[in-house]
């Protein structure tokens, strides 16, 4: 499966705004919504990507492998769930810390095109050699 890099960048920018809103307002709801978006992104059905495709009709000049960004959405989901746990349990440092980590990754992707989530894959495999992750094309 191929992905439109412009849609990925757009999604990262929206994610950055949503996660910043979570931190500024202290509200759990944008984080819960973002967690759902991460889960859909992991499944290859990012709502932000769909918004981009309704706004921009032109075909991308280049496409890229869809698997790395999908894996990164899964990493984002893990941090969002940790943040939600922080909210639910009333552990403010966990709620803010996990959300800030996801914000950092989303910002690096939006502003610099770096995929921090993708790079965790090899580190996870180094720590857990059995943790193979098959994403079907």
């Amino acid at each position, binding site marked *: 499966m191929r992905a439109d890099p412009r849609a990925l960048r757009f999604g990262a920018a929206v994610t950055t705004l949503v996660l910043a809103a979570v931190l500024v307002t202290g509200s759990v709801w944008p984080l819960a919504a973002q967690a759902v978006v991460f889960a859909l992104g992991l499944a290859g059905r990012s709502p932000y990507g769909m918004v981009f495709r309704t706004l921009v009709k032109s075909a991308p000049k280049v496409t890229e492998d869809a698997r790395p960004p999908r894996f990164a959405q899964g990493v984002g989901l893990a941090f969002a769930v940790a943040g939600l746990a922080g909210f639910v349990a009333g*552990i403010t440092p966990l709620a*803010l810390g996990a959300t800030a980590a996801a914000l950092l990754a989303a910002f690096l992707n939006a502003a610099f095109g770096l995929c921090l989530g993708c790079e965790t894959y090899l580190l996870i495999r180094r720590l857990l050699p059995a943790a193979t992750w098959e994403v079907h094309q």
Partner: protein
Amino acid sequence: MPSARAWLHVGMTGVWVVLATLALGTGIGVVRLRRDGRMRDMSGDRAGDGRGDRLTAEALGVPLGPRATLVQFSTAFCQPCRATRRVLADVSALVPGVAHVEIDAESRLDLVRELDILRTPTVLVLDPSGNIVKRASGQPRKADVLTALAAAVPPAQPDSETITSQEPDEM
């Protein structure tokens, strides 16, 4: 026992966390863009503990290039790996006696640990006997690979062997 709540009273803390995160991200991004793909000299490490600074044909599972070998570590979840593969394949086609070997990092975690590879792509430049002379994390530019080769490998022999290039299928 704290009760479940939809709001945390973060006050100004949340704003500071956002600003600190964006500042940290900017710093990381700028450093990354500057360092990404830059060839670092590894020849000085040879005097070290003598481990992990050499890759033999046996360790790689394929013959070394007669003049140099470009070893690329890749994973499936790696955006710049494909472009890096193209750059290195171009260089190995351009420079006689230079082999390009791509290694699936997941299937060679032994080498990944031994060489302390944290990111993909990581590119190693080996001299004819397998000593690691250069190393780059991230996608290297073609010109930088050519420069690294020029500094690292002996000049071409008139009877130099044919170009060797091994690449695995789509990862």
